[in-house]
C-alpha cells in the first residue's frame, strides 16, 4: 500500500463542539456509506453515549476519499474519548495518528478541554489544523474565534474551514485540508513488527479485537505476536480494517496503516491500551514509548439492592470488564449493605457510566456508596497501605501520616466569575498557581486541588457559580501529605460502615454536621427516636434526631372501598422494600449517596 495515500488522524474538540457530527459528515462525504446506513451518529454506537453525547470508547473508521487531485486517499479516522477521565486513552489514540483536526465552536470559542486536547496532540508531535464549526449559529463569531486560536494556541487559523457539520456546510474543504495538511505515515514494512494498541473490544466469537496502528513491519494471519508490556502471546487469526460499523478482514496490515487484529485472546487485560505488539519470533528492539498501566482513581462500593442479586452483579461486572480494562472490582462485605464489590474507575464519569450500564443493560438495582479516592496510609511500622475503602482505615494510633492524590486543574472562566470560582477553589482546599487572561473577558485559572474535593459535585458547583461560563480540565499531579480523618456515621448508636468517609480535618466538623442534616431528611420516621451522629475516632462531633413516628393512620375507609386502602398499604410496603435494614433502622438506598449532596443549596 502506498503510504503517501494514507491519512491517519483524529478530531479533537471540547465536549459539544461537534466532533462526532463532523466525523459523521466525513464518513458520509467519503461515500462509503449511504445515508440510509447512517445511524444518527455512526461513531458513537452505544445508546448511553448517544444520550449523553459523549464518546466513551474510541471507535475508528476507514474510508476512501477521491480528492480534487484525482487520487484516492485512505482516511483512518480515529475517534477519541472526550472526557478527562479517559485522558490516557486519548493520549494513546493520538499517538496512533499523524495529525489532528481541531474543532472549535464558532460561538463559544476555546474551552478548557480544547486546550487540554490540543496540547496533548501537540505533545505527540501531531500536525493540527483548526476547523470552525457551527458558523450557522446566530451567535457565531468566526473571526474572533480564529484570532483566539492564533493567540492562545499559536497555530495558523485564518485559512480554517468555516463549517456547519450539522448542515453539511463546507465539508469538502475539510476533506481537502486533511489531504493537504496531515502528513502521510512513515515506517518500513520490512522492519520487525511494532504496532501500538490504542483500543480493544471483546467479541464473544472472535475474542479480543485489538485496535492498532502499525508503526513498523507487517502482520497477517498466523503471525506469532507478543504484547511487550503484558507479555501475552498469541497467533494472529485475522487482520482487517474498520468499515463503518463493521470489521472488514484483509490479507495483511503494513507499516502506516490502522486496523484490527484478532488472535483468540480471552481478556482485554492482555491487550492493554498503549502496549506494543511485536512479532514474537522477530521482535522489535524496544516498545513504543508512552505505555502506562491504567490506574483507577475513584473507588466506590456497589451493592445489589436485592441481596439475592449478588451473583448477577458479579456476572455483569465480569462482562463489562471484558471490554473495559480500566474497570476494577473486588468483592467486599459491608455490615450495612451485605455482599457487594469495591469498584475502581478512571473518574466520576466513568463510574456513572458503569453504574448506568449495570442498571440499564443488566437490569440491576444498585446501592452505591459515596465515591472516594485512593489514600496512602503510612503506618508507624513502615508499612504503606493504599486505602480504597474508608472502613479499612487502620486504628489512628497505628498511623504515622496519610497522603492524598492532588491534581492540577485548569479552569477557563469568563472574567466576571473569576471571584466566584476562586472562592469555590478556596473552599475545596485549592492552591492557586496562577491566572492568565486569554482575552479581555476570559481567563485561565490554574489550581492544585485534592482529587477528593473534585470527585463529588465540583462540576455542578462550577457550573452553578459561573452560570455555565466555566470549563474545567485536570490531570493527576501526585500524592501529598494531608491531615485526613475518617468520619463515621452512627445511626441509632450503630456505626454504619457504608457511610464512613475520609475528609480533611478542617472540614470534618462542617461535613459531619451537614451529613447528619442530610440523613435526617432522608431517613423516614420510625416507631422510635433515631439519633444520627457524626464521629471522629469515637468522638461525636455532630448530632441530629429523627423524631419518632406518632401517627400513621388511614382513618377514612369509605363505602367499603377496601381495594383503595390496600393499594395505599401496598405502596407503603413497596417503599419499605427499597430500604436497607441497619440494626433496627431502615435506611433508604439513596441515603448512602448523601455525602454527594452536601453542597446543595
Amino acid at each position, binding site marked *: 500500500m502506498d503510504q503517501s495515500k494514507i491519512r491517519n488522524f483524529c478530531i479533537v474538540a471540547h465536549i459539544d463542539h461537534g466532533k462526532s457530527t463532523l466525523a459523521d459528515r466525513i464518513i458520509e462525504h467519503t461515500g462509503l456509506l449511504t445515508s440510509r446506513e447512517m445511524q444518527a451518529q455512526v461513531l458513537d454506537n452505544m445508546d448511553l453515549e448517544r444520550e449523553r453525547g459523549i464518546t466513551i470508547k474510541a471507535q475508528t473508521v476507514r474510508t476512501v476519499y477521491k480528492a480534487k487531485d484525482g487520487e484516492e486517499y485512505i482516511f483512518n479516522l480515529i475517534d477519541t474519548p472526550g472526557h478527562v477521565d479517559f485522558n490516557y486513552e486519548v493520549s494513546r489514540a493520538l499517538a496512533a495518528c499523524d495529525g489532528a483536526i481541531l474543532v472549535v465552536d464558532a460561538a463559544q470559542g476555546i474551552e478548557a478541554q480544547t486546550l487540554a486536547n490540543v496540547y496533548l496532540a501537540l505533545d505527540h508531535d501531531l500536525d493540527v489544523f483548526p476547523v470552525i464549526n457551527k458558523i450557522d449559529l446566530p451567535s457565531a463569531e468566526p473571526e474572533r474565534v480564529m484570532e483566539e486560536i492564533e493567540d492562545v494556541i499559536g497555530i495558523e487559523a485564518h485559512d480554517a474551514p468555516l463549517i456547519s457539520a450539522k448542515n453539511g456546510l463546507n465539508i469538502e474543504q475539510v476533506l481537502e485540508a486533511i489531504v493537504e495538511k496531515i502528513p502521510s505515515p512513515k515506517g518500513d514494512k520490512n522492519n520487525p513488527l511494532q504496532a501500538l494498541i490504542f483500543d480493544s473490544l471483546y467479541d464473544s466469537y472472535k475474542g479480543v479485537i485489538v485496535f492498532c496502528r502499525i508503526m513498523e513491519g507487517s502482520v497477517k494471519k498466523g503471525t506469532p505476536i507478543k504484547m511487550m508490556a503484558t507479555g501475552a502471546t498469541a497467533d494472529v487469526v485475522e487482520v482487517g480494517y474498520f468499515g463503518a460499523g463493521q470489521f472488514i478482514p484483509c490479507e495483511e496490515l503494513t507499516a502506516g496503516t490502522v486496523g484490527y487484529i484478532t488472535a483468540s485472546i480471552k481478556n482485554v487485560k492482555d491487550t492493554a491500551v498503549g502496549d506494543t505488539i511485536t512479532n514474537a519470533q522477530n521482535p522489535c528492539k524496544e516498545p513504543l514509548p508512552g505505555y502506562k498501566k491504567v490506574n483507577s482513581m475513584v473507588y466506590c462500593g456497589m451493592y445489589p439492592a436485592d441481596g439475592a442479586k449478588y451473583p448477577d452483579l458479579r456476572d455483569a461486572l465480569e462482562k463489562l470488564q471484558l471490554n473495559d480494562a480500566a474497570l476494577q472490582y473486588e468483592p467486599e462485605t459491608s455490615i450495612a449493605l451485605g455482599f457487594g464489590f469495591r469498584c475502581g474507575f478512571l473518574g466520576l464519569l466513568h463510574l456513572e457510566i458503569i453504574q448506568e450500564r449495570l442498571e440499564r443493560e443488566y437490569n440491576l438495582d444498585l446501592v452505591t456508596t459515596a465515591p472516594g479516592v485512593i489514600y496512602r496510609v503510612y503506618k508507624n511500622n513502615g508499612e504503606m497501605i493504599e486505602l480504597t475503602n474508608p472502613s479499612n482505615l487502620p486504628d489512628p494510633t497505628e498511623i504515622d501520616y496519610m497522603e492524598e492524590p492532588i491534581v492540577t486543574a485548569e479552569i477557563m472562566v469568563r472574567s466576571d466569575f473569576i471571584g466566584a470560582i476562586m472562592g469555590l477553589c478556596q473552599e475545596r482546599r485549592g492552591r492557586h498557581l496562577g491566572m492568565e487572561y486569554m482575552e479581555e473577558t476570559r481567563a485561565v485559572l490554574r489550581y492544585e486541588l485534592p482529587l477528593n474535593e473534585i470527585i463529588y459535585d465540583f462540576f455542578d458547583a462550577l457550573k452553578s457559580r459561573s452560570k455555565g461560563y466555566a470549563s474545567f480540565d485536570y490531570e493527576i499531579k501526585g500524592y501529598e501529605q494531608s491531615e485526613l480523618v475518617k468520619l463515621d456515621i452512627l445511626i441509632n448508636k450503630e456505626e454504619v460502615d457504608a457511610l464512613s468517609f475520609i475528609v480533611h480535618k478542617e472540614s470534618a466538623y462542617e461535613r459531619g454536621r451537614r451529613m447528619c442534616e442530610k440523613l435526617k431528611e432522608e431517613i423516614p420516621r420510625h*416507631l422510635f427516636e433515631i439519633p444520627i451522629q457524626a464521629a471522629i475516632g469515637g468522638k461525636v462531633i455532630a448530632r441530629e434526631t429523627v423524631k419518632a413516628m406518632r*401517627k400513621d393512620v388511614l*382513618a377514612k375507609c*369509605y363505602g367499603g372501598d377496601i381495594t383503595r386502602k390496600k393499594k395505599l*398499604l401496598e405502596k407503603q410496603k413497596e417503599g419499605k422494600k427499597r430500604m436497607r435494614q441497619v440494626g433496627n433502622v431502615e435506611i433508604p438506598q439513596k441515603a448512602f449517596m448523601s455525602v454527594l449532596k452536601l453542597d446543595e443549596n
Partner: protein
Amino acid sequence: MQSFVIEGNYGKEDCKMKNLSLYVHIPFCTAKCHYCDFLSGPKYMQEKEEYIETLCKEIGNRAQELSREEKIVDTIFFGGGTPSVLESEEIKRIMEVIKERFHVLQEAEISLEMNPDSVTKEKLKVYKKIGINRLSIGLQSANNEELKVLGRIHTWEGFLKSWNLIKDEGFTNVNIDLMSGLPGQSLKSYEETLKKVLELDPPHISSYSLIVEEGTKFEQWYGEGKAQGHRLPSEETDRRMYELTKKMLKDKGYERYEISNYSLPGYECKHNEGYWTGKSYLGFGLGASSYFRGQRFQNENDMEKYLTLMEKGKDPALDRYTLSQKEQREEFMFLGLRRMKGVREEEFYERFQISLKEVYGEKLQILEEKALLKYNNKEGSWSLTEFGIDVSNQVFVEFL
C-alpha cells in the same frame, strides 16, 4: 330484562350463610367541601333524575343474579355525597326498589348520611316511614369559623336546629362526624367542639384527624410546604386533640370500637363493622364498591360512562378480581385489626382451616415485641395496642 353475570367461586367454606349489606351511593352535594376527595359534588346535580333512574335499574339487575338466600339484607347504608339532598320522593323510590328486589330483614340497620343544612321535618318523617333508623350527620366542627374554612355551608346554630328536629322525630340512633387537625383549629376550640357535642349525648361519634388529600382545594392550600391564611396545627397539637378525644369520650361512657369510631354500648354501626369482618356487600351507584362471592369489584367512577354503560345494558362494575386465599387472609388481618376487638384465633381457623399462628406467628410475635399488638388470653384474640392504633398502617403492612 338484561342480566349481569356475577362470576365468582361458590366455595364451600363461604357457604356458611351470612346476610348481605347494601351500599347506595348518592354523589350529590349542595357544595363541594374543600377537603373532600370523594366522588361527589354539586356538578352532578343536573344528572340527578337520570342517575336515580339508573340506580334503581342497577339494583334490580343485580338482584336478579342472586339466589333467594343471598338476598337477605340486614344493613343498608345511603352514603355520599349528601343523600339528604335528595327529595323525599326520590329516596323513597330507591328504598322501594330495594325492598321489592331484596329481602330486607325487619331488624335491619338502615343508615343515611346527611348534612345539617338539608334536614327538613318533612324529609325526616319520610325517612322514618320508609324504615331508615340510623342517621349520620356531618357536623365536623362546632366552630363556625372552622366550618367556613372547610367549605361547609352550615353553622353550629343551623346544626342545632336540625338536631332538635331529628330528636323530635324520634331518631335515637344517630352519629355525629367530627374532624380534628383542621386549619386554624386550636386545642381549645377543638375541646369546645367536643364539649358542645357531648352535651347532646349522641350515641355514636366518628372522629377523624384531617388528611390533606390529593386533588382537593386543601392540597393547594395546605399541601406540603404551603399554608394559606390558616396553618394546620402542629403535630404536637394534632396528637393532643387526638388524646383529648379519647379521654373525653371515654369519660362519657363511649367505647372506641374501631380506629375512628366511638359509641355508647349497643350503638356500633353494623354496616361499617361488616366491612371489617369480611361480610358480603353490594354497592350501587357511581364508583360504589362491592365484595361478593369472594370477589371485589367497583363500579365505573366517571358519571357519564357509568350512565352510558347502564343505558347500554352493560355491567358498570370494573376491576373484578377474586381474592386468593392469601389475600383473604391478609384482609382478614388488616381489616379485622381496625376493630378494637381485634381478630380471634378461632375465627381465623374456622375461616381458613389453618391456625393463625401457623400463618402469621412470627409477625405477630415481632409486633407484640414492638408493643404494637397485644394478645388477649381470655378471648384468644390479637388486637392493636394504644400505640398500635396510632401507627396502625405500620402494623397492617406487615400482613401484606
